[in-house]
C-alpha cells in the first residue's frame, strides 16, 4: 500500500517535471509549428541562472524565489533572440527549424561548458524544502511537492493567460488559423514574439525546478528534450490540456513500468506506447484544412 502510494506520487512528480519542460514547448510548437530543439538548453540556462543568483545572494530560500522570475526572463530573452535572429525567416519551413535549433543547442551547450566549466555545479535547496513530508506513513519529498505545485501554478497561469487576456485571444486565434488571424488585423509578428518569450521563459522556470532534483551541467537539457517532445506529440497541437494529460500519463507509466522492470526498459516501453497511441489517435495531431490543403 505504501509503495503503491509512493509510486503513484513518483509518477505524478515525474509527470510534473515533464510538464514543466514541455509546457513552453507545446506553446511555441502549437503557435508557430517551430520545433525548438534548443528548448532543452533554455532549461539549462534557467538552471544556471539559479546557480548565479544563489552565488550572488547566498541565502538558498531567497535565491530560489528570486531565481524563478529571473530564469523566466533569461529564458524568455534567449527565446526572443532565437526568434528574431533565425526563426523569423523560417516559419514556412518548420522542419528546418528543428535542425537550426539543434545547431543552437550545440553552441549553447559548448558555451555553458566554456563559461561555467565542464564540472557540474550545485544549487542548494532551501532548508524548508529539505526532507520529506510524512502522510499515512508514506514519505513525500518536499522538493517534489514543490515542483508539482509549481507545475500546476504554471499551467493555471498559462491557461488563464490564454483564456482571459487579449494576448491570449490573439495567440489562440493565430494557433487556429494564422492567415485568418493576420487578415483580421492581428499582428502575428508581435504575437509570435510574445509567445516565444512566454514559452521559452517557462523553460527557464523548469530549469530552476530541476536544480532541486539533479545536477546542473551543460547537458542538462538533452536529458529532457526528447521526452518533452513526446509529451507534445501525444498531447496534440496547441493544446495545453493535452500536454497536461500526456505529461502525467507518461510520468505515471514510466514510474510504474520502471518499478516492475528497469529504468531502461521503461523508457523503451513508454516510446512503444506513444507509437501505438499515434496509431489510434493521430487525429489530435492531424488537422486537414481542405480548402487549402497545405
Amino acid at each position, binding site marked *: 500500500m505504501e509503495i503503491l502510494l509512493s*509510486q503513484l506520487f513518483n509518477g505524478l512528480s515525474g509527470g510534473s517535471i515533464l510538464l514543466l519542460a514541455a509546457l513552453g514547448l507545446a506553446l511555441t510548437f502549437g503557435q508557430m509549428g517551430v520545433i525548438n530543439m534548443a528548448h532543452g538548453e533554455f532549461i539549462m540556462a534557467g538552471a544556471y541562472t539559479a546557480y548565479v543568483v544563489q552565488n550572488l545572494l547566498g541565502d538558498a530560500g531567497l535565491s530560489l524565489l528570486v531565481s524563478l522570475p529571473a530564469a523566466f526572463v533569461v529564458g524568455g530573452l534567449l527565446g526572443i533572440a532565437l526568434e528574431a535572429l533565425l526563426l523569423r525567416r523560417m516559419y514556412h519551413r518548420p522542419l528546418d527549424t528543428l535542425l537550426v535549433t539543434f545547431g543552437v543547442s550545440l553552441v549553447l551547450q559548448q558555451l555553458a561548458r566554456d563559461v561555467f566549466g565542464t564540472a557540474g555545479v550545485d544549487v542548494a535547496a532551501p532548508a524548508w524544502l529539505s526532507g520529506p513530508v510524512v502522510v499515512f506513513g508514506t514519505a513525500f519529498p518536499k522538493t517534489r511537492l514543490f515542483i508539482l505545485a509549481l507545475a500546476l501554478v504554471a499551467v493555471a497561469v498559462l491557461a488563464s493567460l490564454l483564456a482571459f487576456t487579449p494576448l491570449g485571444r490573439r495567440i489562440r486565434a493565430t494557433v487556429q488559423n494564422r492567415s485568418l488571424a493576420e487578415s483580421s488585423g492581428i499582428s502575428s509578428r508581435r504575437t509570435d514574439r510574445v509567445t516565444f518569450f512566454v514559452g521559452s521563459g517557462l523553460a527557464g522556470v523548469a530549469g530552476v525546478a530541476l536544480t532541486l532534483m*539533479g545536477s546542473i*551541467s551543460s547537458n542538462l537539457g538533452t536529458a529532457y528534450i526528447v521526452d518533452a517532445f513526446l509529451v507534445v506529440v501525444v498531447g496534440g497541437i496547441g493544446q495545453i490540456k493535452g500536454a497536461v494529460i500526456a505529461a502525467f500519463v507518461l510520468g505515471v507509466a514510466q514510474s510504474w513500468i520502471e518499478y516492475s522492470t528497469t529504468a*531502461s526498459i521503461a523508457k523503451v516501453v513508454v516510446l512503444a506506447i506513444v507509437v501505438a497511441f499515434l496509431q489510434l489517435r493521430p487525429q489530435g495531431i492531424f488537422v486537414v484544412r481542405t480548402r487549402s490543403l497545405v
Partner: protein
Amino acid sequence: MNISSARRLVAVATASAMVLLSGCGARVSDDTATAGEGTSCVDTSGSSVKIGFLNSRSGTMAISENTVYNSLKLAADQINAAGGVEGKQLTIVAEDGASEPTVFAEKAEKLIRGDCVAAVFGGWTSSSRKAMLPVFESNNALLFYPVQYEGLESSKNIFYTGATTNQQIVPALDYLKEKGAKSLFLVGSDYVFPQTANKIIKAYAKANGIEVKGEEYAPLGHTDFSTIVSKVKAAGADAVFNTLNGDSNVAFFKEYKNAGLTAEAMPVLSVSIAEEEVGGIGIGNIVGQPVAWNYYQTIDSPQNKKFVADFKTAYGDAKVTSDPMEAAYTSLYLWKGMVEKAKSFAVADIQKAAGGVSFEAPEGTVTVNGDNHHIAKTALIGKIAQDGLIYTDWTSGKPIEPDPFLKSYPWAAGLSG
C-alpha cells in the same frame, strides 16, 4: 539513366575486389605472419621523445578527464624540468577522445601510427579502455590507464595504475562488514563496471552471510531516481553500495536526502565519487557518506603535500586533487622508472623491465606487478567532510598486491569465467 554502364562498372569493381580478397589477403589462421606490421615507428634518435595523452576534452566525460589531462601535463612538465627521461625531453601529443569509444580507438591508432609516440597515457571509462585495447595489442604499443576499474583483464600492452577490484571493492566490503552491515542494496549505472562489480559483491556477500536486498541499474545519464530510491527505502538494507557514474550521482543523492534517508541510518558507500565530484553533488547532500579509493587530497605525506601544492600552483587554489589524477601523475613517473630501468624506449624492453619498478607516489609506495601489469596500492576508505574533502577513516595498512582475476579469493572462484 544508363543502367547497363553502371551495372558494368559495378561488375568490374566487384570482380577486382574478389581478386584482391582471394589473391593476397592473409587468412585469420596465418596471423602470426603479419606480426611485422606492429613494428614501431618511434623515433628516439633526437633529443626529445614523443608521448601521447588521450583524454576526453569534449563530451560528457570531459568533466573528469580534463583533470587527468592536467595532472599528466604537470608530471610531464616536472620531468622535463628535471632533465627528462634518459636525457630526452618529453614532447606531448594530446588528442581528444570526445567521450566516445570509437573516437578513442581512432585517436589511439593515430597516436601510435601517425605520431609514433613511445607510450600513450589516458582513457577513463571502461568502454574507452576496451575500445583501445585491440589497437594497442595489434600495434604492440603501450597504454597507461589511470582509473579504478572492474578487473578481469590483463593485457601485455596496458599498465593499469588505478585500483583493480581487490584494491577497492573488496576492501570496501571488508569495511562495511567490520561496521556491522548485515544487508546491502546495490545501485549502479547500467554498464560493465557496475555489473561486474555487483557480481563480485554478490559472491562476497554470499560467502560472508550478508544479504543482498536489491540490485537496481539506471541508464547512464538517468536523472529521475524517485523509483529507485523508493525501492531502496522499502528494502531497508543496512547500507547501499553505489556504483553510479557521473551526473546520476547528483540526482541520486538529492533524492536520497529528500526521501529522508541519512548517512547515519543507511550509509551509501560510493566507488566513483572523488573530491572533484563532491562540489557538483552539493556537500549538504553527501556529507558523512563513505567512499573507497586509494588516494585522498588530505593524505599527510611529504610527497602528497608537494603534489597538491604543485597542482594548485599550476592550476589555481580552488582545484582539488583526486585518485584518478594521482594515478595518472604516478603513471608517467612509473613509465619513466621503467624506461630508466630498461635503458630503452622499446616496448619489449619496457615490458621486461616493468616488474618491481616502484615509485614514492602521493598515495604512498606503489610497485608494478610484472605479471599482470597492475600496481600494488593501499586501500583507503574515506568519509566526505563538510569542507568537501575526504578524510581517511579506515586503511588496509599496507599495499595490496593486485589480483585482477581474484584468484586468491576462494569465494570468487568461478567469477572470472
